[in-house]
Each structure stands twice: as structure tokens, then as C-alpha cells.
């Protein structure tokens, strides 16, 4: 019998491996396509048939960060020679970079990217620190109606953003919080807090109570035991939770669309809004997309062993 199974396996194995390779390539092809578009010359990006092999250039990234206007006539030879290489690359496409005096004028992209970074980092710090202590409270102390409270906490995470946004918008208008970093930080902290409580509770539940009890006997106060014993033990969990919260805030679209439009606008509503007027410059949009997705891709690899736990709110640990 064993011989039969192993023969079946030997036969099935190459087919399975070919299938795995094919499926992986198919799944990654959309990501490859957007990434490669970010390095294409403008006409190549929308060519028929689609171009797979081309000479990559970084002009889309230069354009992404600068304000430009179309040239009415080709640049004079001296002007072209005087320009640095990156400006020449833009001149080659029939546009010139706007300047104020000597300074290059930046596009809105770096500002939106910075907004995303500010809002995501601060809301993550708040959600994870509050979530960690609350999770410790739920994990170590008897609480009346614990199940109901935990359900209440998780249910706030499940609310559709548009539903929450309707009353929040009215309140923010009264307090002048629309289109501010603080406004988004509050919303993202609330959104991530429930997730952080649930996930951290899973991690803290795994730390044996005996560690703290031993410390308490040694004369530590409960607070000292928490800071000196529990927090270091939970470090991996805290890091994983923080990365999850960061990614959620970084990716969030609906709240940002509704609550911000200029000053505090983050990248997710900004990137699609570039499609707005005239022919969309797909290479530039792709360049912005690639820079925006890159941190998430890196974090996904760092998180790979905690993904299952993260998507089930700490319920399944592997």
C-alpha cells in the first residue's frame, strides 16, 4: 500500500509544483504590471499590444515629485545643457519642471505621503499602548461581563466606516476637526484599538501568570511586574500588533476620503484623485502606487508568521 501512495505522489509531485509556479505567477502578475508601469516611458505604458520588454527609466518618479507644465516649444540648447540630468529627462517628454526662483516646486505627493506617515504612526502608537494595557487587564483580572465587553470592543471594529463617518463628520465640523491630522488620528485609533485589544489579549494570555507571581513575591509591585516582566515577554506580540495597526491605518480609504481634502489628506484618497483631469498619466500614478505599496510589502514579510493570528483577531495561533 505504501508503495502505491508513494508512486502516486511521485507522479503527482511535478504536476503540483508546475501548478504552484503557474498560480503564483498569475497571482503576482497584477502587482508586476503596476510595478513595471512605474518604469515605462509614457507611450509604452498604454501601447497595444502591451509591452513586456522595455528600457526602464525613472522619469515617472521624477515627475511624481515635481510640478510640471507642458512645453509650448522645444527648449533652447543652452537651457537644455544647463539643466541637471533629472530635469533633462522631464524636458525630453515635452514638459518642464516649475521653479520658484531656483527652488524646484514639489508636487502634492510628498505632502500626502507625509500625512499618511504622521497619521498612521501616531494612531498606531496610541492604539497599541492603550490596547496592550487593556488586554493585560482582561487577561489577568476578573471582570464582570468580560465576554460582553470584549464583544462590544470588537463590534466597534466591524462598523462600516461610512456609518461611523456620518455623525463623526457633524461633530468634527463643530469642533473644527475636519481636514486635520488629529481628526484622522482619533478615528484610526478608535478603529485599531479594538483589534489591538483582541490581538494583545491572545499574546498576553500565552505568558504564564507564574512569572509575575514570582516577581510579586520578590517584592515587585503589580505595576513593576507589568513593566519589567510582562512587557518584555510580550515584545514580539506588541511589534506584530503595531505592524498590523500601521498597515490598517496606512491603507484606510473611506474615512480619509470623507474627513480630509487638502491639508491632512492621506495617500489613499490622493492617488486615485490624480486620475481627475484629462488623460491620466498612468506611469506617474504607477510610480506613486509603487512607493505607497512598498512599505506594506516589506511589513508583510516581517509579519509572515503572525498573519493568521492577525486576521482572526488572535483567535487562531497556529
Amino acid at each position, binding site marked *: 500500500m505504501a508503495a502505491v501512495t508513494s508512486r502516486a505522489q511521485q507522479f503527482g509531485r511535478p504536476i503540483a509544483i508546475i501548478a504552484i509556479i503557474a498560480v503564483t505567477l498569475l497571482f503576482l502578475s497584477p502587482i508586476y504590471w503596476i510595478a513595471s508601469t512605474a518604469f515605462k516611458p509614457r507611450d509604452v505604458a498604454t501601447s497595444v499590444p502591451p509591452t513586456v520588454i522595455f528600457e526602464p527609466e525613472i522619469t515617472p518618479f521624477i515627475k511624481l515629485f515635481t510640478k510640471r507644465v507642458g512645453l509650448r516649444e522645444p527648449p533652447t540648447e543652452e537651457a537644455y545643457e544647463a539643466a541637471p540630468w533629472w530635469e533633462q529627462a522631464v524636458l525630453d517628454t515635452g514638459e518642464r519642471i516649475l521653479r520658484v526662483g531656483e527652488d524646484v516646486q514639489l508636487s502634492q505627493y510628498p505632502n500626502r505621503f507625509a500625512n499618511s506617515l504622521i497619521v498612521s504612526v501616531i494612531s498606531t502608537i496610541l492604539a497599541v499602548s492603550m490596547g496592550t494595557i*487593556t488586554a493585560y487587564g482582561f487577561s489577568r483580572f476578573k471582570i464582570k461581563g468580560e*465576554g460582553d465587553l470584549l464583544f462590544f470592543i470588537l463590534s466597534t471594529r466591524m462598523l462600516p466606516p461610512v456609518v461611523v463617518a456620518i455623525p463623526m463628520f457633524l461633530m468634527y465640523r463643530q469642533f473644527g476637526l475636519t481636514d486635520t491630522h488629529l481628526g484622522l488620528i*482619533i478615528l484610526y485609533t478608535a478603529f485599531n484599538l479594538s483589534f489591538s485589544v483582541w490581538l494583545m489579549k491572545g499574546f498576553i494570555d500565552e505568558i504564564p501568570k507564574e512569572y509575575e507571581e514570582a516577581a510579586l513575591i520578590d517584592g515587585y509591585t503589580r505595576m513593576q511586574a507589568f513593566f519589567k516582566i510582562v512587557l518584555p515577554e510580550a515584545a514580539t506580540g506588541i511589534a506584530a500588533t503595531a505592524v498590523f495597526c500601521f498597515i490598517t491605518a496606512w491603507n484606510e480609504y473611506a474615512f480619509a476620503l470623507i474627513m480630509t481634502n487638502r491639508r491632512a489628506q492621506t495617500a489613499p484618497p490622493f492617488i486615485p484623485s490624480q486620475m481627475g483631469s484629462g488623460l491620466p498619466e498612468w506611469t506617474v500614478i504607477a510610480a506613486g502606487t509603487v512607493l505607497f505599496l512598498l512599505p506594506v510589502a516589506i511589513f508583510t514579510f516581517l509579519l509572515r508568521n503572525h498573519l493568521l493570528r492577525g486576521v482572526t483577531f488572535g483567535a487562531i495561533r497556529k
Partner: protein
Amino acid sequence: MAVLATLESDTRAAARGWSDLTIRNAFILPTIAFLVIFNIFPLLYSLGFSFTQYRVSLNQPAEFIGLKNYSDLLSDPGIWQNFTITAQYVIVSVGGQMIVGFGLALLLNRSFPFKGLVTTLLLLPMMLSMAVVGLFWKLLYDPSWGPINYVLGLGKFEWLTHPTNALFAVAITDIWMWSPFVMLLSLAGLSAIPKHLYEAAAIDRASSWYTFRRITLPLVAPLLLIALIFRTMEAFKAFDLPFIMSTANVETVAIALYQMAFQGWDTGRASALAYIVLIVVLCITNIYVKYLNKIKER
């Protein structure tokens, strides 16, 4: 002397430190307060508005009209159309995710070189921003130069601008993004099935279909159910993908709500619709948490 000294430091430590009760409250209450202030209070606020005629854009006070918003909404064929589209979207996209995701898991549930790397690469789509994914799938779907039409040889096939194709196009993107989620849960279930069950089935000369139906499926079912409930809830709330890709043709309930509240500024009516959506979501959440706790206990 030494004993005395320890005793003394003990009492001092206890006096300095907080009692367990204080710590418990100090650790839990801020979170509860935060969530009540920024989630529950606003929702009560909008519950009030749902019984009124009120427009943020006008400078008039809200006028109490009882249940009129609710009865108007429930008798509005437009809203039922939104619910129908949402239901179709849920069925196509969640159904697709379950099949593709479970299929992927069956395929990956074996040892092969670079397994960890391949699994992580396949999980990448679900970590990305839905808004940005929707945007770049728009490029892939472009009727005149998009690579999808070229590869499939569909000529100038209209995906997102066609009333019925659009739903499938957005659902395909959603399937691409979220099948990995189903795959991740299924893989966890598959790898937990004891090997000896399969050995016993092999000794009994059970057909592979029988083994799949009687061993694999029932043992993975609890995790598949969790994936199903969670994805159903998320698809019911679908906003980002359909909004970016094809607002006009895939007008889900969430999009209708957004337009009513932030483009029509019909705040009272939108609050009522928000409450209808909220009740559905809370019901699904309740079922979801029940099954999550069940899995946890195993």
C-alpha cells in the same frame, strides 16, 4: 534584622504601588471610555437624526418626523436595488474567494521548495490598500490597451463601463485580493488534520473523493466557516473597490449611503439607512464572534 528589612520594604512597596482593583480600572476604563466617546456616542447622535428631516448643508434645525425616514427607505425601490446589487456582489465575490482560496490551500498543503516564500507572496494582495488595488485594476481592465483584454483575446471588451460586467469585474478583483485570506485559514485547518486519519483511509482503500469528503472537508469546515462569515460581512460593507472602480454600475449599499450622506447631504435619511446597515452588521458580527470563541476553545 534582615527579615525585618524585607518586611518593611514589602509594606512600603505595597503602599507605593496601586491595588489590583485600581490597576484593573486604570488599564481598562480608558479604552472603554475612548470607544464610547468616539463610537457609541456618535452613533446615538445619528440615531437621533434618523428620526428627523435634517440637512447639514442647510442652516435649519432638525425637524422630528418619527419613523418616516425608515418607512420611506424600505419602500424605495432604489434602495432595494442597492441591496440586490450588494447581495449579488457578496455571492459572486465570497463564493469565488471560498473556491479559489480553498483550492489554493489544497494545492499548497504539501512540502515543496521555498514554501514559506511562495505562501507569503500569495498572501501579499490582501495586505494592500483596497483603494490603490482598485485603481490599478482599472488599468488592467482598460478596454483599449489593458493587458487583461489582450491576454484573453477579448478585443475591446468593456469590463467596468458595462452595467452587468462591472459587478463581475469588481468581484474578480475582490477575489484576487481576498482568496489568500481563505487560503490562509484553510491551510491552518489542513495542516492540523492528523496524518494517521489519511493512513487509515488508505488502508481501507477509500477513494480520494471519499477521503476528501469524509476527512478533509469536515475537519477544515470550522475554519472555512469563519472565513465565510468574515468575508460575507466585509463584502456586505464593500465600499473602496466598487467606489474606485465603477461607482455607477456597482452601487452597493455603502456607496448609496456615502452618496446620500456626503453628496446629497440628506443627513436624516442617511442616518436611518446607516442604522439599517448597522443592524445587519451587528447580527453577522454576533455570529462571527460565537464561532471565533468556539475555535478558541478547541
